[in-house]
């Protein structure tokens, strides 16, 4: 086994890990950044093809069970440097102030230990850094404001029909704030409306960690080790995390670090903590609360498709171009809690045909063919719905082992009754919007997107795993960043909050690590004296 050491070792080079790595390296710390997948160059390694670009999804075995088992392959996964922020649609929204206080405001879920005001400065910073494009006036200012790049001028037919339906139904609407260039930036060119955003964006118009924080971090001295699978965090007698063990090219390696940061999304992060159980931490690392892996969250992401007499061709342009947030907290009006947003959502053929089959197992052969022959006449819109946190929705370790001999994670998930109420209401609203636009709604396709939770933040070590900075309550030099720390799963797309909270954590980790290094140096000096 080879051994090396550094100030900070980060596991996972996605939206959260790359932000932390770049910040700490620029602050002068020696940073190692591990990722289980490869480092890809969009111009060389991406293709404008759905099947080929499945390589961006996490492709290791995971067990998915429960009453509503989650698809853990596509919209809830990412493998490779940049993580799932490489194949996302790039609609970036702030959370609403009430999202941080659902227990107080609507007596459901749990309150976060931070408020909107705590995150707001980071939302502003990331809006600039990620070059968000958006309208000059956004009707829902708390969700986004002062976008540095202009809104995209061209809107697809799919989006125009969606907006027409919203207008006639009396909803406000806007083009979406997108992390997709609407004007040149440095060597990068603006979007040319190809529609392959979820396939990674070969022209590199979409802002991802691959064209922001990763190159910044590398320039500042980050040591990036790709295709390295972390499998255990070691600890010492003092209860401190000491190193990350990983496998690269079939060989075992160890990195010792002053500070260890887990940024491996909502399954691999709890998996790694649980798999690092030891005599001192028999239930898994940082798990004195018993909550590591618990309160796993997702968003419902159902689509409704309507057929129109004219040709729409929803493949053109980025999938998500316009939205309404008027329904965000609509549950209060209908006897349930929270709500959903709606956006246009153009689907490419493989995704659409797969959704047809997943929602109707009889949809093969002639039935599937007939539906797909009408592909160019469909308008597709989608909702993003809040899912209520539940203790039994969890990541645990199964008794099956992967190719490295590590336990395969098991994900158990079932929807709350409130989730179903949101889903039903959203279906009815989406149908009415499409009817108002002149279409005939035909299909309601259930799906979900994003993963959150599993290492929720809180002020109390008995009911949470980490602080609001991601510092684990049990092991003070071990941090978790990214969506696993989320307490609830608001309807707004989570990635802007992931980036923003990662920056907030990075600043804290910088101070923590520098102080820890000074303390270590001072201890060493005392021993020598």
């Amino acid at each position, binding site marked *: 086994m080879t051994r090396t050491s550094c100030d900070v070792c980060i596991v996972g080079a996605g939206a959260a890990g790359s932000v932390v790595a770049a910040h700490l390296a620029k602050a002068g710390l020696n940073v190692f950044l591990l990722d289980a997948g490869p480092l890809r160059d969009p111009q060389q390694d991406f293709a404008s093809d759905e099947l080929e670009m499945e390589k961006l999804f996490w492709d290791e075995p995971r067990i998915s069970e429960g009453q509503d088992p989650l698809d853990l392959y596509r919209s809830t996964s990412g493998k490779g440097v940049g993580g799932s922020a490489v194949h996302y649609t790039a609609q970036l929204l702030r959370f609403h102030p009430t999202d941080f206080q659902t227990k107080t405001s609507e007596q459901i879920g749990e309150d976060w230990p931070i408020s909107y005001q705590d995150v707001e400065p980071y939302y502003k910073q990331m809006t600039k850094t990620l070059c968000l494009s958006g309208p000059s006036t956004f009707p829902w200012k708390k969700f986004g404001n002062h976008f540095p790049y202009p809104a995209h001028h061209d809107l697809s037919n799919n989006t125009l029909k969606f907006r027409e339906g919203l207008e006639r139904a009396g909803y406000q609407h806007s083009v979406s704030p997108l992390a997709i260039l609407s004007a040149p930036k440095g060597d990068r060119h603006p979007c040319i409306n190809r529609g392959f955003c979820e396939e990674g964006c070969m*022209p590199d118009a979409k802002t991802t960690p691959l064209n922001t924080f990763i190159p910044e971090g590398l320039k500042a001295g980050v040591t990036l080790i790709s295709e390295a699978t972390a499998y255990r965090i070691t600890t010492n007698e003092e209860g401190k995390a000491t190193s990350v063990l990983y496998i690269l090219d079939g060989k075992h390696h160890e990195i010792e670090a002053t500070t260890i940061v887990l940024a491996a999304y909502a399954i691999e992060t709890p998996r790694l903590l649980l798999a690092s159980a030891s005599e001192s931490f028999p239930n898994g690392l940082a798990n004195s609360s018993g909550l590591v892996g618990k309160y796993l969250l997702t968003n419902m992401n159902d689509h409704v498709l309507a057929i129109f007499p004219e040709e729409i061709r929803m493949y*053109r342009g980025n999938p998500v171009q316009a939205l309404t947030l008027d329904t965000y907290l609509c549950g209060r009006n209908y006897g349930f809690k929270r709500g959903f947003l709606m956006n246009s959502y153009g689907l490419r053929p493989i995704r659409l045909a797969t959704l047809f089959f997943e929602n109707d197992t009889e949809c093969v052969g002639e039935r599937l063919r007939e539906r797909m*022959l009408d592909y160019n006449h469909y308008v597709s819109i989608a909702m993003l719905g809040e899912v209520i946190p539940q203790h039994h929705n969890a990541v645990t370790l199964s008794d099956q082992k992967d190719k490295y001999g590590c336990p395969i994670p098991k994900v158990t998930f079932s929807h709350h009754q409130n989730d179903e109420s949101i889903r039903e209401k959203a279906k009815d609203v989406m149908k009415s919007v499409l009817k108002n636009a002149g279409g005939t709604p035909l299909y309601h396709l259930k799906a979900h997107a994003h993963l959150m939770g599993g290492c929720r933040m809180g002020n109390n070590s008995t009911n949470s795993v980490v602080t609001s900075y991601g510092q684990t309550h049990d092991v003070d030099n071990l941090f978790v960043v990214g969506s696993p720390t989320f307490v609830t799963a608001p309807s707004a797309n989570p990635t802007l909050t992931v980036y923003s909270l990662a920056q907030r954590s990075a600043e804290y980790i910088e101070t923590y690590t520098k102080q820890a290094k000074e303390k270590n140096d001072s201890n060493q000096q005392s021993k020598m004296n």
Partner: protein
Amino acid sequence: MTKQNHPSKTYYPTYDVISQKNEWDEATQSVIFERVHSKEGNVLSATHKRTLQALSKCLFPSHLGEHTLSISMVLDQRITNKKLSTFPREARFTKEDIIIQGLENTEQESIHQYHLPFFQLDKNDQLSIMEAWKEIDGDPRIWNPIKSHLFHSTLTSELIKIIYADPHIWSTIGFAGPAYPRGYYAFGPHQFDEWEAKPHDENLL
């Protein structure tokens, strides 16, 4: 759309996405070329492939007449290249294991019931076996531990991906395929770029 006015084949009988292939970026050209001219993988046996082809014809009878890819070769390549190493929902086996074992179970079931390999059965007998999978979960002496319905759903979803990754099928549905490096300029209602399918007669609807 009603049965009466639904087109039986395609709105775009003359459209051919692949005629544009030289315009695409090199990475995409290479990916599509390898798919259309797929080579043998090294996982599926000749028997597996015969069974797979017969099952495909049962699952997608009309699609296959419009298809230009070799489904069995593309699937074999995908298995060989470790593209099917995830578990489907509610499963504890990889997609690869489910499909390979399922193909073997299908063959075994066919011989057990009809004393013939699956591909030699007449269509009705093939369909009868497949229909039974949905009802009784397959013969437990054969379909254990991988159940027939798991094989059926896993194989079908993988075949759907391959079918809708076929440029010829893109042509039949009017999908313009890889858009790079040109992107879309004509974007609004009744506007089409010259390399897209020509709009069909709206009176069809």
